[in-house]
């Protein structure tokens, strides 16, 4: 089987298995565990196939491009290190699957369990055989995520959820740091390909960014492998089902950090910083973990802290930056995987059988469950580092190395602490075994129904324990070549000469470990007294700290967010205006340039000045009088008058027409709305706020006014408008350049513009369509007119006048429309005039009377208007020209004489229809909604009456 295929299958298998299990989540447990076990076994087989050549020294690898621009390639490679870890992951994985199959209780979601387990296995496998650091990161974060699912498997348990969250937060967070570190590493090394990076160690260590990078990467590793002070998530991960714990904490999850340290050893190791930080952190963790483990009573908790301690040991060894230490680490990884998995499983068995994990309630189980006792005791012995077991050898090696490292200038420090650590681990290991299996039962209840489980359940731990034993008896035969090769891979060169054996003659290491054993026994003997001391000491619990930190952050961040983000329009606008003002000031200061330009001013005529005064006064009145709303509307229309007058004066007749007609429609709208709104409610703002806003407003006004002045006093440069002026008649067929721009040069704008108006009409309709029902309807029905009204609904003179005004106005509208292309006017203005004509009818004769005589549906008008405009645009396309290309021609008919037809006129028709429809829709909807609400209510009441 070709190497690339092998590798990709190797990684893909677990994921595929997970997928299959997820798809078959309703199938039986056997199916699930079958798939999972099968996948693990298959993977293991593949790995074994590769084992020979890999240990032989060649590195099978394959690479596919993924994101070249990023340097993220799908590179896979199996070197001895990867092989070792891969073996552990798959092998122990397989055993865990078997164990779990028997362990899980009936009715548990085995599908979800095994799927998550396989997901996790795949992620782990990916980490160890990834040949690209970015790819490694992908799998790294995947392990955090999948472990989240595994730890939280028992969703109903609070501690499971907390444990899962904590694990995710810590390891995921560390993962983020690692991302930073890895990207930096890649940037420094100039490549993200692992092999390349490993060759460029010197370059990396020389880089000024090395410390930052190192720090980030170490955070990643330490969080993952639960090093002090990031250790606390691990014990709480014990809320997971025991098989999960066995898997995560022996061979996989927590080992990932160690793996990464080993993986990057050639690049990172050797510097002062690396050695001191890593080894001291490891040392502290080892001692600390062991110490805590000694005083725990929960079986799994003891194992958890022992794991922390053992991981500390590994990290410390790797931190030594010594080849032999690395070798020791490799060996211990192997050992630890074996005995720790075995211990977890036995713990699981004990819990499964006795229903408790509290060792204070257990004891003397050896009689009732001898097999389990044998397995667990042997494993514990290995953990304690007693001969003739594997643990002993690796610990020997460790102790042998300790004198070579000097911390704080104290040569004895490291050996001493290491020995203490060892002593403690002997202590808790022995305590574990003894409390569980020897002496006599402390409580009857759990003891009563305890017995050895079936073969299926103890087979897995048995195998592991056997491994642990053999690692002690025949280490060289069993693991020698592998360890050698792996060490070579770790240190990135040839492994040093080494011999693994129980007996090296009497040397420092032996003495130290003897001390350790003796001390361990002593500890066990004095345990009760020590325990009281320990409990009196009452060390702070890191978990509570974490919880408190999170809680603190949550409350305060929430306070801050709520305080700043309660939706208040005034705040939003204040922020916006403040930003604007600041930016304008910035522009004025930074940009430089002159304020007043060179353009000659036009002297203002007296009426203009008076009009200006009028505008200022009216504005002031609006602001100052804004409480009396009706009055303000009068002022507003005065302002509108002046503005349109200004447009007339500055030769913009079209604008004047538009402004005037829009003005009146707006006023009608506001009056209609004001009828239902409060007429003169008390003002709300307090004085200080008024001053603040006033100041801001004045500054803003001065700034914008100043900008306008600066703009007006400059001479315009060459404008594209010259082209419009030149081509309006010949190219657009119209003499009113503004109109030609609107319907031809920039018809696309106009298309959007009428659509805006149409949508506004629709939106308003939709808003008011529902006023009759719900709270609004109820409020409307109860709505009492807040000012006494005249009983006369339709004043006679007005009504009579309106009847003659309508045709007159219509004529004017048509006139304005037809001449629009050549003289001021056009579809938009015409539409407004016509709309006003009809609105006068509504005003005079009332809604119902006029509406009954209406012959058009506003919705359809809008739709047809837009369609007409679009049709003119697409018509051009049909004739092969660009969208909205216009054409025009002059025709002569007998009697009528010459007249012009332009396609732009058709477009203008579209404008007319849409605008007219939108305006009518808006105002007609708004009129007399109170009555309509009452009517709708009556109708519903009638229906309800008819119903029964």
């Amino acid at each position, binding site marked *: 089987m070709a190497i690339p295929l092998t590798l990709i299958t190797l990684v893909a298998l677990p994921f595929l298995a997970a997928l299959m299990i997820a798809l078959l989540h309703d199938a039986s447990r056997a199916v699930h565990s079958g798939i999972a076990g099968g996948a693990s076994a298959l993977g293991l087989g593949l790995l074994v196939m590769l084992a020979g050549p890999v240990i032989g020294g060649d590195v099978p690898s394959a690479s596919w491009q993924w994101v070249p621009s990023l340097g993220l390639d799908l590179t896979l490679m199996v070197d001895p290190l990867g092989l070792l870890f891969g073996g552990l992951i798959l092998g122990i994985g397989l055993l865990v699957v078997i164990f779990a199959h028997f362990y899980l209780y009936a009715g548990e979601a085995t599908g979800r369990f095994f799927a998550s387990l396989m997901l996790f296995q795949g992620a782990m496998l990916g980490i160890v055989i990834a040949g690209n650091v970015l790819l490694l990161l992908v799998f790294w974060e995947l392990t955090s995520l999948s472990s989240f699912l595994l730890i939280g498997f028992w969703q109903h348990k609070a501690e499971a959820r907390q444990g899962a969250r904590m694990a995710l937060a810590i390891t995921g967070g560390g993962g983020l740091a690692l991302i930073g570190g890895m990207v930096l590493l890649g940037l420094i090394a100039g490549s993200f390909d692992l092999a390349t990076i490993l060759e460029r160690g010197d370059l990396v260590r020389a880089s000024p960014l090395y410390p930052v990078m190192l720090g980030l990467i170490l955070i990643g590793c330490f969080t993952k492998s639960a090093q002090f002070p990031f250790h606390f998530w691990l014990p709480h991960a014990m809320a997971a089902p025991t098989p999960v714990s066995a898997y995560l904490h022996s061979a996989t999850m927590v080992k990932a950090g160690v793996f990464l340290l080993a993986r990057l050893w050639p690049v990172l190791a050797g510097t002062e910083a690396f050695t001191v930080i890593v080894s001291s952190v490891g040392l502290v963790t080892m001692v600390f973990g062991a110490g805590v483990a000694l005083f725990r009573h929960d079986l799994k908790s003891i194992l958890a802290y022992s794991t922390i301690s053992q991981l500390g040991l590994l990290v410390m060894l790797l931190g030594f930056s010594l080849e032999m230490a690395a070798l020791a680490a490799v060996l211990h990884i192997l050992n630890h995987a074996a005995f720790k998995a075995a211990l977890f499983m036995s713990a699981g068995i004990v819990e499964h059988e006795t229903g408790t994990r509290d060792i204070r309630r257990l004891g003397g189980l050896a009689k009732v469950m001898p097999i389990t006792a044998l397995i667990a005791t042997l494993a514990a012995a290995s953990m304690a580092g007693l001969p003739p077991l594997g643990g002993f050898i690796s610990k020997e090696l460790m102790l042998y190395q300790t004198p070579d490292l000097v911390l704080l200038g104290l040569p004895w420090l490291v050996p001493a602490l290491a020995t203490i650590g060892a002593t403690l681990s002997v202590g808790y290991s022995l305590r574990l075994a003894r409390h569980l299996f020897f002496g006599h039962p402390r409580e009857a209840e759990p003891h009563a129904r305890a017995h050895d489980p079936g073969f299926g359940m103890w087979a897995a731990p048995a195998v592991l324990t056997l491994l642990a034993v053999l690692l002690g008896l025949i280490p060289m035969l069993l693991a020698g070549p592998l360890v050698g090769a792996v060490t070579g891979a770790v240190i990135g060169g040839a492994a040093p000469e080494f011999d693994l054996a129980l007996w090296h003659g009497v040397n420092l290491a032996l003495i130290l470990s003897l001390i350790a054993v003796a001390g361990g026994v002593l500890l066990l003997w004095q345990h009760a007294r020590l325990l009281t001391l320990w409990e009196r000491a009452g060390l702070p619990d890191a978990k509570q700290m974490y919880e408190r930190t999170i809680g603190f952050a949550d409350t305060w961040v929430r306070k801050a967010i709520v305080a700043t983000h309660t939706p208040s329009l005034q705040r939003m606008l204040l922020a916006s205006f403040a930003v604007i003002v600041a930016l304008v000031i910035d522009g004025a200061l930074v940009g430089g340039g002159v304020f007043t330009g060179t353009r000659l001013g036009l002297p203002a005529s007296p009426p203009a000045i008076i009009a200006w005064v009028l505008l200022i006064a009216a504005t002031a009145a609006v602001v100052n009088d804004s409480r009396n709303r009706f009055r303000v509307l009068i002022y507003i229309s005065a302002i509108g008058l002046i503005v349109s007058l200004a447009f007339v004066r500055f030769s913009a007749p079209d604008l004047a027409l538009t402004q005037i007609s829009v003005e009146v429609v707006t006023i009608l709208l506001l009056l209609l709305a004001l009828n239902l709104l409060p007429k003169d409610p008390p003002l709300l703002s307090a004085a200080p706020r008024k001053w603040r806003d006033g100041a801001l407003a004045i500054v803003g006004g001065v700034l914008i006014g100043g900008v306008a002045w600066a703009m007006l006093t400059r001479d315009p440069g060459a404008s594209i408008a010259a082209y419009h002026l030149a081509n309006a008649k010949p190219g657009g067929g119209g003499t009113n350049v503004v109109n030609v721009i609107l319907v031809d040069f920039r018809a696309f704008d106009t298309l959007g513009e009428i659509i805006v108006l149409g949508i506004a009409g629709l939106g308003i309709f939709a808003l008011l369509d529902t006023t009759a029902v719900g709270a609004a309807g109820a409020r409307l029905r109860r709505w009492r007119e807040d000012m*006494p009204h*005249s009983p*006369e609904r*339709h004043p*006679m*003179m007005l009504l009579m*006048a309106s009847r003659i*005004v309508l045709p*007159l106005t219509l004529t004017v509208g048509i006139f304005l429309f037809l001449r629009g292309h050549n003289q001021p006017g056009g579809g938009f203005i015409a539409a407004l005039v016509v709309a006003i004509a009809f609105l006068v009818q509504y005003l005079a004769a009332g809604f119902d009377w006029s509406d009954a005589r209406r012959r058009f549906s506003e919705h359809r008008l809008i739709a047809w208007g837009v369609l007409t405009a679009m049709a003119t645009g697409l018509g051009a396309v049909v004739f092969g020209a660009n969208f909205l290309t216009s054409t025009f021609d002059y025709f002569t008919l007998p009697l009528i004489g010459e007249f012009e037809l332009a396609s732009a006129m058709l477009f203008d028709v579209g404008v007319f229809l849409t605008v007219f429809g939108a305006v009518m829709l808006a105002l007609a909807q708004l009129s007399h909604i109170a009555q309509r609400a009452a009517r709708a209510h009556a109708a519903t009441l009638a229906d309800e009456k008819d119903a029964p």
Partner: protein
Amino acid sequence: MSVPLPLAEVIVSLLIVIGGSFALIGSWGLVRLPSLMERLHGPTKATTLGLGGMLLGSVAYFQLVRGEWTTHELLVSVFLFVTAPISANLIAKVHLHRLRLGEASEAAGPAGRPAPPTADTDWATHEAPHLGTPGDMAGD
């Protein structure tokens, strides 16, 4: 028409001056007269003769001085003649209405409050027009 230019200019100027003066007088009346009903008379001047004068002036100007045929100014007058009485009428109605309500800002003028036409009916502002009478527009 062939009118010698000087005469034409005289006509135009005269019309403009008359128009301007009446507009001013109207607004002056708006300011100085004692109460709303009196002030209401002011704008009617401005509307009729004031604007009329200026519009005629414009027609005459384009006609006689520049020789262009522009007549649509007259339309402005047409509209105003139709609409001005209505505006006045409605404002008066509002005045009566608010007078009856006793709004503080709405003071009765020297003419006092209008008495009801007869004992049994009141003005339409205060009493809905009777069915079938000309003022009854409810049917429409």
